[in-house]
């Protein structure tokens, strides 16, 4: 209908005044739509996240540049030393670095939520008669789209470096899906932190303290058999190790072991614990 104008250079036009009679007639329609269900409101919030990506495409920078840098850097840096050649290392390393990149990107969820809270738009959402977690679930669903982009970017870089997954397209897809489930579950830690801590910077700081030991202290980079005993013990219980092992099996086309149910169990546990804590804090944030 209206033609879009260049708002950055054009001087602001004379603003239109509100119409009292039109406001009264808008208020007069007291029709109340049927209250929507939890899935519907969560998807609406997911739609909001996608609209934000449309308007602020810069937020896709982290999900594209970051995986490229991580994958290239570690494969080329460690490949020769650890596995003899870059090509050999990438077969082992790619599922792991995909997990690492996606887990690091989940941190931005907390940052985004904190910004929302500070801007006041969350007050509006919290004052709506909807299923309360839907704003957060929708946000995490929107993030899943960003995670998927990061996974695709990582896979493409891997293919260029000579990665040839034995599981084929189906195996890789299943592996990515598993990472998405885990990333969604992990997101609840960050939502809880962002309701608990008062500044976006402190959230990033605490997130790094959690992410560093669970990603580097895992089987992402090297086989844990060369590690000292205490570190092996940590790697054994680290949920990220179970996730990486299952993703390797799925993508490599090798039979999956007990790691898969353990990774899923951890995901469910994270949602149960941090989802509950988040919603408890959501009642009364700040």
């Amino acid at each position: 209908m209206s033609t879009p104008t260049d708002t950055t250079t054009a001087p602001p036009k004379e603003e239109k005044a509100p119409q009292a009679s039109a406001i009264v007639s808008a208020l007069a329609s007291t029709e109340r739509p049927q209250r929507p269900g939890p899935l519907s409101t969560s998807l609406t919030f997911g739609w909001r996240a996608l609209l934000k990506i449309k308007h602020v495409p810069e937020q896709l920078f982290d999900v594209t540049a970051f995986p490229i840098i991580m994958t290239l850097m570690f494969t080329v840096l460690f490949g020769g030393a650890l596995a003899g050649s870059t090509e050999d290392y990438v077969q082992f390393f790619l599922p792991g670095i995909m997990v690492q990149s996606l887990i690091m990107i989940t941190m931005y969820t907390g940052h985004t939520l904190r910004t929302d809270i500070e801007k006041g738009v969350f007050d509006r959402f919290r004052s709506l008669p909807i299923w309360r977690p839907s704003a957060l679930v929708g946000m995490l669903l929107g993030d899943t789209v960003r995670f998927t982009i990061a996974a695709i970017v990582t896979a493409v870089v891997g293919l260029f470096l000579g990665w040839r997954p034995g599981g084929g397209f189906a195996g890789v897809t299943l592996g990515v899906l598993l990472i998405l489930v885990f990333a969604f579950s992990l997101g609840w830690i960050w939502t809880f932190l962002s309701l608990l801590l008062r500044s976006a910077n402190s959230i990033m700081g605490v997130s790094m303290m959690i992410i560093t030991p669970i990603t580097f202290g895992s089987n992402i980079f090297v086989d844990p058999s060369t590690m000292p005993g205490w570190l092996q013990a940590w790697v054994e219980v680290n949920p990220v190790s179970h996730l990486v092992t299952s993703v390797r099996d799925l993508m490599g086309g090798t039979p999956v072991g007990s790691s898969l149910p353990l990774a899923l169990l951890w995901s469910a546990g994270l949602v149960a614990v941090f989802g509950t804590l988040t919603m408890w804090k959501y009642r009364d944030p700040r």
Partner: protein
Amino acid sequence: MTELAIETHGLVKVFGKERAVDGVDLAIERGGIHGFLGPNGAGKTTCIRMLATLLRPDAGTATVLGHDVIHAADEVRSLVSLTGQFASVDGDLTGRENLRLIGKLFGYSGPQALKRADELLGAFGLDDAADRQVKKYSGGMRRRIDIAASIVVTPELLFLDEPTTGLDPRSRNEVWDIIRAMVGSGTTVMLTTQYLDEADQLADRISVIDRGKIIAEGTSSELKASVGSGSLHVRVMHRADRPAAKAILERELGVEVVEMVDPQGLTAAVEASGPVTRALTALEGASVELAQFALGQPTLDEVFLALTGHPAEESTDEEVAA
């Protein structure tokens, strides 16, 4: 139908050591505009946030439209709407997208939400800006989209938290017109403000809050009357006439007449308008020319000073500086 719009008993909210809201009792009837007047940091926003179910009270009870804000929070949320002190719309999205988002969250279908969004954008004079990101709106437009978002589904009770803070006079008048229009259609409005003239202009009844406590309640006229009678201000045309004018006024009014800093000004507290008329006639009879005269109730500024012992403005500045 007979239940009150808002009823609270001993409402308390504590932040750390500070009792932000310290035992507030309110009984606000349905319909019209109820003003919640106080300086910054008096507890207005905290009170509103508890009533809108955004904060849990630490003590006391509150019912909104007959529903308890703690135990029936969902019912309250479906009947009230809140426009916060800061724009509670998403600055990254366009005006239309914001309204569609709220519409869909209320359960409108996609096309219904779009239709409602366009209707509201037109009513609020925002159709030209519909496809611009809200963060590029002017302050007045942002306020309007914010209020529009609050009435996507017509609320029975609307909380407006300092709706005109930071607006230029024209935008402020537009927001006032919007508020008056909404009340005309039967919505109850609870309005917080730190501007005395805003409460005077809009509110049917006013609760004055200071340091977490309600210190006075009533209509604007009642509040003014409770402080004292009205006052007469007279400004003579020629300075030399002032002593004569003072003598005539004192004789006719029978009260003390005070000489103002202004060398032509005189002021006196008066009980009724009858003697004033006679006094002015007497001045004319004595050929004392007047530059201006005014008879009025005390301003809300004077009311606030009398009620709290400190002027509203001073406390506002302290709060801003803190």
